[in-house]
């Protein structure tokens, strides 16, 4: 069984590609962990065009229902692609469930995931004081001092989430200043619960059974300092889920798949990509959905072209069966 299109990922880019693929009557498979992408855990999405406000879960269900409305689209979930290689008629995808699927074209919409600090203690105390989800876990830290790592908007928003609960909030950035919106910065600085620490590199997360503190290098005076905190929220950006494509497509230094922004084409014919896994500048749900459509339509044209080319291939092999059999 060879699919026309395999879509990897179920965020807005993958769901949009899935819906358009069904409308083009392509034999389609979607492989994904879940629907909704990184917004799944969002408390409130207010910038999806056409919907004033919804939760991440509502968004996820909306995407899933729209894809599932097309019964011809097959969905493997939860399942994760672990590698891609070239096959005779296109590409072959291996998954964490030890399945192998083949398709003529591929759309990579595997999104991003949260960047980790990469310091000792981070893994050990995951779920034991280190959290990447303030909407989930903020109330668990009632009356405890906590640290939020990252001075961008995401970090500032976590501070806001924690305000009703935590006894003290240290907002820590490795930069010289906070980069998040000035309006949220002002709101945060008004509270006597918060203190901002800049020019600080986190070195270690400390604790026994749970987190009890952290160690950081203060670049202002070149000293290693410790803070006593019961929780550490990490908000230092995201990394693209592009590892499974390995060297097949060109990526930039950040690991983002480089695409032609007119078409969603990657450096590898037949592989298209969209959304946060690519070098798209603006990581936004609405943009990812549009990019997903672009990638799918380009993949559709690609499939039409290889179909046209196949008779020529047959001629060239003088009556022998065509190598590419579409």
């Amino acid at each position, binding site marked *: 069984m060879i699919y026309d299109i395999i879509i990897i990922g179920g965020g807005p880019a993958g769901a949009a590609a899935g819906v358009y693929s069904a409308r083009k009557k392509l034999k389609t498979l979607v492989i994904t962990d879940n629907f909704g992408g990184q917004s799944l855990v969002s408390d409130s999405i207010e910038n999806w065009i056409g919907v004033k406000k919804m939760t991440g879960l509502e968004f996820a269900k909306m995407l899933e229902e729209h894809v599932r409305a097309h019964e011809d689209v097959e969905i493997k979930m939860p399942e994760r692609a672990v590698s891609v290689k070239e096959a005779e008629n296109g590409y072959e995808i291996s998954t964490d469930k030890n399945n192998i699927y083949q398709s003529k074209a591929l759309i990579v919409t595997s999104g991003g995931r949260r960047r980790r600090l990469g310091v000792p203690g981070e893994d050990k105390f995951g779920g034991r004081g280190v*959290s990447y989800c303030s909407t*989930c876990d903020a*109330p*668990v830290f009632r009356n405890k001092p906590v640290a939020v790592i990252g001075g961008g908007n995401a970090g500032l928003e976590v501070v806001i989430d924690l305000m009703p609960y935590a006894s003290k909030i240290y907002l820590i950035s490795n930069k010289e200043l906070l980069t998040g919106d000035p309006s949220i910065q002002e709101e945060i600085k008004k509270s006597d619960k918060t203190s901002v620490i800049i020019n600080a590199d986190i070195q270690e997360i400390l604790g026994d059974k749970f987190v009890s503190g952290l160690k950081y290098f203060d670049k202002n005076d070149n000293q290693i300092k410790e803070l006593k905190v019961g929780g550490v929220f990490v908000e230092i950006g995201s990394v693209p889920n592009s590892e499974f494509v390995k060297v097949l497509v060109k990526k930039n230094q950040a690991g983002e798949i480089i695409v032609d922004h007119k078409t969603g084409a990657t450096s590898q014919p037949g592989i298209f990509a969209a959304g946060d896994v690519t070098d798209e500048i603006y990581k936004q749900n609405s943009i990812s959905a549009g990019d997903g459509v672009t990638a799918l339509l380009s993949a559709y044209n690609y499939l039409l072209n290889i179909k046209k080319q196949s008779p020529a291939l047959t001629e060239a092999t003088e009556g022998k069966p065509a190598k590419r059999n579409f």
Partner: protein
Amino acid sequence: MAKVTIYITPTCVYCKMTKEFFKKHNIAYEEKDVSVDDKAREEMAAKSGQLGVPVVDIDGKIIAGFDKEAIKELLKL
């Protein structure tokens, strides 16, 4: 029938997904909201060693996070 307790916060998506999963499979459960219930929060941390939600307790066996496969196994679904 297994005794099922779930520790949640109101804004946690994975908590909602876990509860929906229980409802879909007609599993009765007790819900403890750790954002308002101090005792439940301490109980959760002591039982599970976790400071994150959801935590699911099925007859004393602890599952951290929404782990469908683990829940299915314990409830023999």
